[in-house]
Structure formats: structure tokens, C-alpha cells
């Protein structure tokens, strides 16, 4: 954690979050605290519960145990759109654009529903400029490349003026150069004050970006700390990276 964010107020607090699917325990006793403006990396093998945790925070899933609070406000029971209006934005593992709308219209939607309907078009163009997509404003999502679709998701998130962005594998399937492009955008967003939780399998991206790393294995948190220290832990090597 950098000096700047050490003193920052707590933005997200997850206490004892648990989630079951029938008899399968997907998450158990997850405690995570994130400060305003912090950059947190969340890693773990497939099926370790990362996306389930994100879905519990975003409101797509209702957790069975524990509480989640954003800036002191309890999120339990709130629908995803209410959480979004409190400043929680997310991207999806697979880009989920509004397929029948142009790129510009995609970015206008959150503005129309956040009390910012006035000048929504101009503001949406501003968001597209931030992700260097202004030239594609009139295109349809299906006409975009993979990295452009990721940029569109980020532009839509930026339009929400979020306090916290959860980037769920926002770089999956991208080339080395494209990963760098997305990292630059995320850093820019973070520099503007948005805390970021990055869920990623690309270790280079996670370690370059994150101030702190949390590791999930089989629905439990097994490590939480500075990336270098966490990655050097034997249990993390065992469970995730594999011993050499």
C-alpha cells in the first residue's frame, strides 16, 4: 500500500462473506478491506471464488454470510443498479456491450441514469476520449476489436464516475501490447482517485499494477499483502503458481 492510500479512508469493507451454491461452498469467511484510491490485485486458480466474490460485491449474487459496505454504507440487499449509483463500477470477464447501440450510446446509458442526463452526449464523448475511442463513437460493438470492446467497457465505467472499479479479467485474451494499453487506462483512472480491484490471470499485469495482492484458493483467502511478499509465500506457490 502506498503512503497516499495508507491514510485514506476505508472504501470497501467485506466482513466474513460466504456464498454457497447448493452444497458447494464457493466462498467462506472472506474479509477484505480496501482504502479509497487503492489498487488491489485479486488472484487465484480457476474456481477459487474470485468472480463469485465480485458478484457478491456488485450485487449479482446475494451472499449467504457476512456483510459488504461501500464507504460505510451497507450494500446487503441492494440491487446492482443501486450499488452502481453509489459509485461501484465493474467490467465483465467477457465484454457485455449493448449490442444494438452505437459505442456512443453505450456510454450514454449510465449517464442517463445517474442524474447526468443533461449534456450526456458531450460527457459520453469525453469518456470515449479518455479511452481513446472517440473515433469509434458511431460504430457498433460488433465492429470493434477485442481490445476496443474492453476499452468501451472501461469508458462505460468511467461514465459512472466510480469510487471503485472492479476489473474482472479485463485483459483476458489480449496481446502484450494491448495489455499495456489497458494497464495505462486503469492507472489513469486510479490516478484520478478511483480505487481498482483487478482480477487477473496475467501475473505481469497484476504485479505491475497492484499495491496489494489478495489470493483466493478454494473459496478462502490465503494471503493478503504486498505483491512480492505474497507471491513468495510457500502456500501461494503451492496453490497457485506451482513449485519449481
Amino acid at each position, binding site marked *: 500500500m502506498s503512503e497516499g492510500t495508507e491514510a485514506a479512508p476505508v472504501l470497501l469493507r467485506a466482513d466474513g462473506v460466504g456464498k454457497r451454491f447448493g452444497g458447494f461452498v464457493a466462498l467462506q469467511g472472506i474479509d477484505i478491506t480496501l482504502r479509497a484510491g487503492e489498487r488491489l490485485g485479486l488472484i487465484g486458480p480457476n474456481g477459487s471464488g474470485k468472480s463469485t466474490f465480485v458478484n457478491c460485491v456488485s*450485487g449479482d449474487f446475494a451472499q449467504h454470510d457476512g456483510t459488504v459496505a461501500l464507504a460505510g454504507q451497507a450494500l446487503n440487499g441492494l440491487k446492482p*443498479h443501486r450499488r452502481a449509483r453509489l459509485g461501484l*463500477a465493474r467490467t465483465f470477464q*467477457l465484454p457485455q456491450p*449493448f449490442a*444494438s447501440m452505437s459505442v*456512443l450510446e453505450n456510454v*450514454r*446509458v449510465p449517464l442517463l441514469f445517474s442524474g447526468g442526463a443533461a449534456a450526456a452526449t458531450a460527457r459520453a464523448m469525453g469518456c470515449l476520449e479518455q479511452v481513446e475511442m472517440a473515433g469509434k463513437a458511431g460504430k457498433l460493438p460488433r465492429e470493434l476489436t477485442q481490445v476496443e470492446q474492453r476499452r468501451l467497457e472501461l469508458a462505460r465505467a468511467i461514465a459512472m464516475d466510480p469510487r471503485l472499479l472492479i476489473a474482472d479479467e479485463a485483459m483476458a485474451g489480449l496481446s502484450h501490447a494491448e495489455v499495456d494499453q489497458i494497464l495505462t487506462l486503469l492507472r489513469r483512472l486510479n490516478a484520478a482517485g478511483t480505487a481498482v480491484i483487478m482480477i487477473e490471470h496475467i501475473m505481469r499485469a497484476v504485479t505491475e499494477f497492484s499495491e496489494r495482492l489478495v489470493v483466493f484458493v478454494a473459496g478462502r483467502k490465503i494471503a493478503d499483502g504486498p505483491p512480492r511478499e505474497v507471491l513468495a509465500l510457500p502456500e501461494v506457490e503451492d496453490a497457485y503458481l506451482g513449485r519449481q
Partner: protein
Amino acid sequence: MSTTAVVPATLAPPPQGAAAPTRHLPFWLGAAALGVALFVALRLIGNEYGYYVGYFILQYVVLSSAWNILGGYAGYVNFGAAGFMATGAYTAIVLRKATGLDLLPGIVAAAAVAGLLGLATGYLTLRLRGVYFSIATLCLAVVLHTLVVNWDYVGGSRGAYIVRPREVPPFVSYGEYLFVVMLALAILTVGIARAVQHSRIGRGLQALRDNERAAEAVGVPTLRLKLVAATLCGALMGVAGAPLPYYSGYLNPEAAFGLAYAVNAIAMPLIGGVGTWAGPVIGAVVLGGLQQAATVTISSALNLWIVGWMLVIFVALAPRGILGWFQGRR
């Protein structure tokens, strides 16, 4: 895991580009001018059958435009259109029988009752998606049909009569009066559908039709918007049904809950082009006109046969309807 709402390819509207400011005044002026022109033309023709045909087609303009608000804009396919239309028709009968009030108050009451029914149905069923929602709306129509068949106050399975006034000044006949009423309702319904499409609500409905989960994630209150659409859709379909007993002077459950209403309410937007206000209007005029032509020249028994063939043709050749086909050629 994706929870994207499943929208059949034939219900996928043509893509829409960047927003342009919507101008409402030219639309209302144009619609009023068209209405006056239709009225004058039919008055000059002076044939009662002209009013009958006009009423028949305009009734479907109202019904299909109403259906399109939930089915086309939001992608929730409602198979219960006949149930809502019959609710409007029987509300008008009940009001007439209980209070003696005539057609116009009956239309207002029909809008209120069918709108509330739409809201209640939406609250209970809009958490369902795709085919599950459609089946639930079909069940609603069956339940309402059973209720009406067993409700003596409105005639049960025997049906109910409404005695139409002989004269309705300044109109030359009751047929002309009904035509003018349905014309006004059609203009109002299309205007509402157009305003919704271009409003924030319309954009939210389009977003949730494309991807409900993503819409929620960016702050769109999807359930609330769906309830607004279901209420509006129900109210306007009820409005389409309110004049029905006055139109024929007699109504029984078989006529009010006719399969033709349910099928046409879906087929007309599909053929015209879903997702835009103009699609159902085009579909109603084309399909309604064809059905009337078949009724006069061959037999009314061919009506659903025509709808079936038209659907097959459009699904195969122009799955985005007439509007989508023209937009695709540009």
C-alpha cells in the same frame, strides 16, 4: 456466467446510432393531419364498410404498438395480448352495466384496470426471462378467460349485449363515431410509444433488452423500467379492447379472447419491425389490410392462415421486418 436476456433473432431490432434530439411537434401535427385526411376521405366515400375497415386496422395499430413497448423495446414477449384486450372490453361492459356510463368513460376505466393488471402481472412475472415469461403471460390469458366464462354478471359463456345509440351527433353514424374514437386512440398510442422509445425509459429498456445484467451494472433500474413498460403496455392494450363490445353490440369470451388478437399483436410488430414505434404501425396496416382483403374476397377463415404465411416469409427473408429490411438496404 452470462445472464443476457435471450431475444430471438426475429425480435432483434436494427441497430441504432448516436442520439439525435427528438422533435415531437412535427410528429403530432403530421399525425393529426393524417387523421383528418382519413376522416375526410371516408366521409366522402360515404360507405359504412370503410369505417369498419378503418376501425379494424386502427384497433390493431393500438394493440401492436402497445405490445411493442414491452415486447419490442424491452424484449419481453407477451403472449397474453388477448387477455389484456378482453380485460378492456369487459371493463367497458361492467362500467356500462353498473353505472350506465358510455364508451369514453369505459376507455378510461379500461386503461386503468388493464394497466393495473399489467403492473400486477409484471410484478409477478418479470423476474422470469425468455420463454418462461411468455408462458406466464399465456397462462394469464387462460386464467382470465376462465374467470369471465364463469362470471354471470358479464354474461358468462353466453356473452353480453350492449345497445348502441342510434345517433351520435355530429357523426353521421355510430360506425363513423367508433372510427374517430379508434383513430384518436391510435394517434395517442403511437405518440406515447414514440415518446417512450426516444426517452430515457426507452433507452433503458433497449439496454436491458440487449443485456440485462450489464444494464443493472451501469445503474439502469431494470425491474422498475420493466414494470413501467408492463403497465403502459397493459393499459394501452386494454384501451384497444374497450370499444370492442360497442363495435359489435355483443361480446362473448370466445370473441374477446380470440386467438387472432394474441397472434396479430405479435405478428404485426414482427412484420413491421420491432423496437421502433413505426414498425407496428406498418405491420398493422399491411397485415390488417391483407386480412380485410381476404375477408372480403375469400373468407375471414383465411386470416390466421395469412398471418402464418407472412410470418414464415418474414422470418426467412426479412427477420428484422419491413423497416429493418429497408434500413439494411441503405
